[in-house]
């Protein structure tokens, strides 16, 4: 078997970077000298991001069709690497003060990203599952990273159990699909279904796949793990979990459902529409009652999963474009918000919304970034979130008008709980008026996410056009 290594540049270099960070961490004697590992991984990741962007045109399949490389995978590779870079950049302060084991932290983050990339580049179910497990196991470790903290351990335990459960459901679904369609290769499944290869077991398998991936994207009713895990996990990990794991799972959903089951569209779009509606409802309405900002962002991320699922309901190129666009802007909004949360926690030791009182006086940049990120998530023009929601909901206006109405109403509702935080930050007087000094790298992250959210809201065409090209190429390549 010939292996085309040029298609695997990102994966191989990520694996080498992860192992190098690991080895360096073993060689470096003192724990204090491991602080450089973050900078090292950051430099490595920037090089890998450049390599990935440079190999944009590389297309094809390798390892006998088990591994795919096309515009679609390149787009999501760039997305996950960007997310990882922003998370590492923004979390430097937090990691230095809250986490002792830098070696494990950075290498596990890199391996989680590698898992994501393998997951959505997979051409068959086995490779997909391998990537998924690499990602999930890395996240289990990362979630329970602050091992002296009870909440972090609880989060790790919950994530372990529910990730195991969802993997089991997913694996059962995959094996049912394999049994019914006769192959594990996504492309061949599509071919077999097109030839009238239909089996009721396929529907059962499909439902199980939706359940399994529903856990990963934390769509209701498979969302119950998200608030506790998001709350307990170290905040940078929460950000990466919310962004990376979700985006990668959406990429896989598109790959599997549009790649293999496009012919059976009428069997699953209604189910996905139902999940989207339920996620929006539960996420937005439960977020009202939260007093902890991480829990609130967790429920908001459940709602976001609902919005993104709308693009999958459409199951056409506009829908794919919407999912890709929204996933990308969601990276900036979420990482911006969580970086503020981790910086505030680092200084005040609290995640309560009440403790954000007067943040606009103590750290104006953090307050503004949180404001802009939240308004973007709520979908207020001219921020990026508005454009993203527009691209998503425009696709289902004809067939699922009720979903559009629901999405619009709930977006308006969500403004309330986002603005509640903003009100606390800008109106209330701080309990401790001393200025809250942000770390330099965290400030850089905040500026970057702020700029991206504003820029993509006002001038979305470059990214939209790119997403459109990729979506067309993806559907043409099926």
């Amino acid at each position, binding site marked *: 078997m010939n292996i085309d290594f040029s298609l695997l540049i990102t994966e191989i270099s990520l694996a080498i970077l992860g*192992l190098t960070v*690991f*080895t360096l961490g*073993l060689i470096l004697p003192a724990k204090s000298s491991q602080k450089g590992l973050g900078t090292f991984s950051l430099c490595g990741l920037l090089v890998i991001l450049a390599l990935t962007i440079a190999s944009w045109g590389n297309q094809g399949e390798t390892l006998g069709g088990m591994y795919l490389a096309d515009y679609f995978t390149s787009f999501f590779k760039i997305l996950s690497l960007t997310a990882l870079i922003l998370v590492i950049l923004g979390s430097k302060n937090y990691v230095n003060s809250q986490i002792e084991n830098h070696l494990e932290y950075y290498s596990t983050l890199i391996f989680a990203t590698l898992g994501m990339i393998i997951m959505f580049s997979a051409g068959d179910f086995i490779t997909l599952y391998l990537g998924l497990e690499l990602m999930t196991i890395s996240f289990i470790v990362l979630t329970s990273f602050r091992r002296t903290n009870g909440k972090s351990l609880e989060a790790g335990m919950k994530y372990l159990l529910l990730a195991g459960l969802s993997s089991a459901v997913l694996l059962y679904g995959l094996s049912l699909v394999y049994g019914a369609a006769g192959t594990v290769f996504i492309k061949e499944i599509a071919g077999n279904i097109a030839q009238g290869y239909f089996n009721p077991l396929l529907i059962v398998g499909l439902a199980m796949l939706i359940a399994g991936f529903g856990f990963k994207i934390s769509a209701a009713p498979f969302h119950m793990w998200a608030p506790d895990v998001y709350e307990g996990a170290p905040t940078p990990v929460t950000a990466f979990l919310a962004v990376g794991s979700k985006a990668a799972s959406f990429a896989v959903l598109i790959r599997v459902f549009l790649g293999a089951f496009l012919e059976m569209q009428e069997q699953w779009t209604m189910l996905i529409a139902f999940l989207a509606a339920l996620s929006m409802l539960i996420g937005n309405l439960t977020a009202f009652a939260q007093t902890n900002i991480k829990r609130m962002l967790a429920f908001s991320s459940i709602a976001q999963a609902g919005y993104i699922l709308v693009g999958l309901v459409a199951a056409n190129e506009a829908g794919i474009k919407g999912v890709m666009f929204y996933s990308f802007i969601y990276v900036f909004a979420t990482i911006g918000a969580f970086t503020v949360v981790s910086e505030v926690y680092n200084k005040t030791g609290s995640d309560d919304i009440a403790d954000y009182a007067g943040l606009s006086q103590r750290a104006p940049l953090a307050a503004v970034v949180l404001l802009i990120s939240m308004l973007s998530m709520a979908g207020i023009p001219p921020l990026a979130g508005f454009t993203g929601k527009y691209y998503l909901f425009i696709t289902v206006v004809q067939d699922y008008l009720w979903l559009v109405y629901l999405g619009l109403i709930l977006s308006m509702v969500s403004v309330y709980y986002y603005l509640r935080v903003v009100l606390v930050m800008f109106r209330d007087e701080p309990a401790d008026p001393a200025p809250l000094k942000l770390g330099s790298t965290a400030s850089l992250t905040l500026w970057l996410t702020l700029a991206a959210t504003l820029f993509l809201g006002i001038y979305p065409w470059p990214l939209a056009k790119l997403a459109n090209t990729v979506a067309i190429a993806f559907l043409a390549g099926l």
Partner: protein
Amino acid sequence: MSVWLGILFFILAGFAFSAIGLGLSFLIHPRSKNRFKLETYECGLPTIGPTWVQFKTQYFTYALIFVIFDVEVLYLYPWAVSFTQLGFSGLVKMFIFIFILVLGLWYAWKEGALEWR
């Protein structure tokens, strides 16, 4: 047919082998009778002290480290069998594989998993 005959002889030889061993020891072993001989052997002894003891979690770490080598051997065997066909690239790949496993062992060692506390 001859194949099955061979298996039959093999079974018979096996029976004979164990029968000879047992028979010989029955004939020549010294006979001494005491009550300890009637007690259970190895498993199922009456316990001494409380049975709800805690085991060290380090056994678990040891088991994990054992898995490193277990998996290594699992892949080394088929690799060794088809070594000549795999050629030089096979050697390189196996070294990469072993390197990653050794990293795991190195990490466990550095974290003190090999020291009994």
